[in-house]
């Protein structure tokens, strides 16, 4: 009843001209009459439900099992970390924490340091990101917003296929295709156009830091683009309509309605790509030239944490050499953690004042 009264008040207050509504009685209200008597026949369903237990035991044991699963993650991480520390003991004792900042890598003299490899890993990964991210975003935007419907599925399928190719195959392709292109076409072109930056000086044999970065970029492109596509597809259409209704062009709609709303997810996708780039071993080992260099031109050979382990583990002689390689593994572990922590911080800094999700 009260709602009816409120409506009447509103009628007279805000809109004296509003006409009375033609007789418009609600169809019928439930009356206060007693419900018809029904035989209290025994109900199999009620009996069944009443006999069920409280479920407390099942709930508790389920929670315990899930807790165990969650703990296993911590256990595995700690276990790996512990094993790495234990097995790199000779090298840890010999070089201490300085190992991570030393430049030397001389198996003959027993002089080891991880810095060139840390540099190689970070440099190839970041260069790869710089090349892959714009391309991946372009692919994702095209697929979600611009692509004609019949082409959408085949292109998505191709992108995902690209992600499923084993890295050694990428490596072979790079050796036979990318390296000659780099040596004969792309390299001279870069020298001619960007030689003044000093990044592209020195001899160019086709293998080196830049080639490794390019193959890494190709490898992480499908991961980033397919994840980004999924995130953009999840942006509700109401957001696109809201921007369009304000008079936005298609690009403005994509920028404000789609990219802005999925930026956190996009950072996450980039981080997954970076994760793969940091740890990628086989393809990089095949084209990076395998020489510990720091700060040389991009054509020069370099080496990464993962590829030095893959390249030298089988020929490592002596405890110190072996433990130094294992400590390189430890360094890779730490680099990954630090990079991920920085990424988390970046996400946190961006989202401090804004909710993470779109409604």
């Amino acid at each position, binding site marked *: 009843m009260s709602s009816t009264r409120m409506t009447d008040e509103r009628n007279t207050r805000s809109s004296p001209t509003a006409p009375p509504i033609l007789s418009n009685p609600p169809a019928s209200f439930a009356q206060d009459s007693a419900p018809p008597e029904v035989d209290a026949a025994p109900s199999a369903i009620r009996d069944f439900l009443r006999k069920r237990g409280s479920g407390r035991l099942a709930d508790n044991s389920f929670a315990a099992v899930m807790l165990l699963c969650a703990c296993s993650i911590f256990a595995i991480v700690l276990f790996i970390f512990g094993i790495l520390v234990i097995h790199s003991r000779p090298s840890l004792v010999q070089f201490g924490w300085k190992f991570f900042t030393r430049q030397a890598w001389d198996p003959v003299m027993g002089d080891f340091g991880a810095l060139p490899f840390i540099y190689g890993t970070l440099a190839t990964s970041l260069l790869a990101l710089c090349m892959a991210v714009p391309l991946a975003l372009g692919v994702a935007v095209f697929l979600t917003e611009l692509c004609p419907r019949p082409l959408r599925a085949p292109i998505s399928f191709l992108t995902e296929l690209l992600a499923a190719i084993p890295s050694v195959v990428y490596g072979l392709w790079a050796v036979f295709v990318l390296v000659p292109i780099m040596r004969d076409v792309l390299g001279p072109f870069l020298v001619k156009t960007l030689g003044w930056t000093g990044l592209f000086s020195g001899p160019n044999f086709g293998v080196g830091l830049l080639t490794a970065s390019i193959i890494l970029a190709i490898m992480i492109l499908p991961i980033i683009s397919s994840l980004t596509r999924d995130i953009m597809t999840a942006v509700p259409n109401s957001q696109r309509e809201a921007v369009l209704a304000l008079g936005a062009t298609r690009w403005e709609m994509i920028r404000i309605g789609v990219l802005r709303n999925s930026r956190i997810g996009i950072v996450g996708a980039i981080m997954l790509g970076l994760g793969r780039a940091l740890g990628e071993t086989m393809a990089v080992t095949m084209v990076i030239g395998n020489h510990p260099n720091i700060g040389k031109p991009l054509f020069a050979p370099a080496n990464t944490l993962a590829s030095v382990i893959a390249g030298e583990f089988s020929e490592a002689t002596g405890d110190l050499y072996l433990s130094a390689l294992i400590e390189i593994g430890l360094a890779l572990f730490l680099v990954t953690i630090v990079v991920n922590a920085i990424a988390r911080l970046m996400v946190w800094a961006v989202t401090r004042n804004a*909710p993470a999700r779109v409604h």
Partner: protein
Amino acid sequence: MGVGILVEDLNAWYGSNHTLQDINLHIPANHATALIGPSGCGKSTFVRCLNRMHETNPIARATGIVKMGEVDIYKDASPVEIRRRVGMVFQRPNPFPTMSIYDNVVSGLKLNGFRNRRILDETVERSLKQAALWEEVKDDLKKKSGASLSGGQQQRMCIARALAVDPEVLLMDEPASALDPVSTSKIEDLIFQLKSQYTIVIVTHNMQQAARVAENTGFFLNGKMVEFDSTHKIFTNPKDKRTEDYITGRFG
């Protein structure tokens, strides 16, 4: 000030579904016009044709003449130009969750490259006051996200966002259907005040709402406009039997 809208032989399709059939209608300037009818009768499609949002769906299509003032919106202008002149409020509040209240309100201006700080500040205050939200949010304009408001506040913010670009026409597609009675009454008051300055077209399935806010009402059924007249006439003395059946609650 708003402009009138003249609709001639408007037809619209979703795929092979003929959702609007031969609509002819004159919507007067600076008045509120309500469109009522059962779900799926085409009233939402109709308002979406008025700012060319209908065609953003790839399978949708529309033919006919829609004149906004002197401009034939399907012939003389691009959809983007039309939408800059026509504000739209949707059924569910759709604030931009990554923007502050302030940025939400001026998003239409910033989008079009408007950068004058002083005028932006004034616009935020004017449109939030018009939307009866200013008092509630004036202290955390830049602190709070648009999505942190309640549903009713979000919808009023979306109205402010539409008003910030100073549109000539305001389209409202069931603006109160997802809201509680108190928020609904606030939004109705608002429409009542705004209609002297803007041409308002409001879709509603709440007939009391149409009666309260609109001077003219159109009744839609199965993609056709059955009757269009003054709200008083429609609700007291409808010409068509189907209109009478609908407003007396015999169906729909």
